[in-house]
């Protein structure tokens, strides 16, 4: 019996971790390559969730709405990069913090204006709305498995793109030395815009996919932002591999923290981060 509960917790932890990875990977790429601290990254997560809720309500299909929210988040990301973020490349990190903080306020207020202050729930599509029976008393929702599978596949796809494609080589090279990338004849401005848009799209997708599990509520972007920063810093800023392991570590720490120390679950997550940084001040893979 205990073994089943353990398995469920592991599955939950991994699912949460994979979801965090989708958001954190964009954050770490944007910082690693473009040198931008983007506090508004969590807002794309929120945007994805609200788009999923809103489009599902109007189209009746969550699948369709998730697919639609992806290009919308990417487009919003690209426009923000081109209009505002681009002015910040050579500026102090604090200017970036301030500007993207301003963006958070605008995103949060726009969300309130468009969709109000209520908490919304999103229904799981019928195909996935059933549970896997593990024992007489325990079952596991299939949607969570589906979520893990999608996030896992995306992580693999991202791994493939980053390690095997030319685009991935440019991205990694950009993280190491962006001036040299330009000196090789690669359009760095465009590359940055695309990376920003992809990061936004991934965060939006994570928000859309998780909307049936976590519900949709104002300010949901802020908490995911902070936890993703924790992931990024644990893994080492700029490292995709680090973000992946950091996300799983935090996903599991959070889940098991809730089981074993229900009163101090969140404390555990930050404790893990503090411990990692005291051991390795620049993260695991910097």
């Amino acid at each position, binding site marked *: 019996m205990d073994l089943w509960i353990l398995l469920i917790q592991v599955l939950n932890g991994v699912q949460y971790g994979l979801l965090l990875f989708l958001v954190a990977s964009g954050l770490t790429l944007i910082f690693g390559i473009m040198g931008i601290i983007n506090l508004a990254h969590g807002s794309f997560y929120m945007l994805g969730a609200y788009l999923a809720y809103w489009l599902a309500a109007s189209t009746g299909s969550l699948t369709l709405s998730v697919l639609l929210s992806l290009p919308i988040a990417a487009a919003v990301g690209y426009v923000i990069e081109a209009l505002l973020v681009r002015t910040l490349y050579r500026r102090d990190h604090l200017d970036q913090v301030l500007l993207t903080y301003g963006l958070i306020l605008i995103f949060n207020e726009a969300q309130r204006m468009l969709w109000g202050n209520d908490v919304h729930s999103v229904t799981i599509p019928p195909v996935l709305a059933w549970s896997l029976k593990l024992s007489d008393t325990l079952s596991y929702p299939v949607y969570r498995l589906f979520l893990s599978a999608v996030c896992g596949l995306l992580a693999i796809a991202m791994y493939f793109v980053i390690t095997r494609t030319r685009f991935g080589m440019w991205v990694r090279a950009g993280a190491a030395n962006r001036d040299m990338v330009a*000196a090789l*004849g*690669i359009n760095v401005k465009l590359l940055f815009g695309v990376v920003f848009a992809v990061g936004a799209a991934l965060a939006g997708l994570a928000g859309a996919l998780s909307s049936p599990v976590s519900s949709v509520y104002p300010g949901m972007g802020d908490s995911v932002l902070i936890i993703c920063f924790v992931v990024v810093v644990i893994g080492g800023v700029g490292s995709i591999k680090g973000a992946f392991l950091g996300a799983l570590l935090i996903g599991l720490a959070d889940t098991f923290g809730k089981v074993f120390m229900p009163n101090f679950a969140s404390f555990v997550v930050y404790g893990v981060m503090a411990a990692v940084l005291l051991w390795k001040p620049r993260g695991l893979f910097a």
Partner: protein
Amino acid sequence: MGELPPFLEAHGIHTYYGSSHVLHGIDFRVGQGETVALMGRNGMGKSTLIKSLLGIVAPRQGQVSVDGQAVSGADTHAIIRRGIAYVPEGRGIFHNLSVREHLLMVRRSGAGKRREWNYERVLDTFPRLAERLETMGNHLSGGEQQMLSIGRALMTNPLLLILDEATEGLAPLIRREIWRVIRAIKDTGIATVIVDKNVRVLLDLADRHVILVKGEVVYDGGPGPLRDDPDILKRHIGL
């Protein structure tokens, strides 16, 4: 020697770092297929001139044209795409990319669909790289990094190759190897701009020599006068 039709031309380049005036109105040209040695002591503005030509540093005044097209103020990548390859001082190797990836990331045909240089030919030219294809940039020795930087430049099939201190800090055997390759590249008809400390090799290799002192051109001409009058070199460059 007849003047070759220009591939790269710059007029009146003035470049500043902050308030420090580094280049004082430099004229510089490279003919098609020409080998130009850019000489001068450290801090005289050689690297700054190259960076100004490529738009890596923005000159405050002056015009640059490549292949007859004005490129002043253009982005670096757009200038490079006109057929220039750059091997920077310090080599510009990415610590987190393998040798193979360095070469593949920039593979492209040059102007007029030229494809003389491809992956296989670069590896033939630098057999040492072929042995270390999966090695990451930060695990290469200085000589291997230099070969990789040149090999990577060739993968773009350039019309002009700019080499900034390509033999700096390398062991004599490796330097010899690098010079052999540079000579081979020159013989394929690619124009080159070479910055190097090795005056004797440059005198032998280059068609034309440009000497910079304090951000100004003090000599622009063939190797003959420099061989005949060693004082010029001694005054501007030597011991």
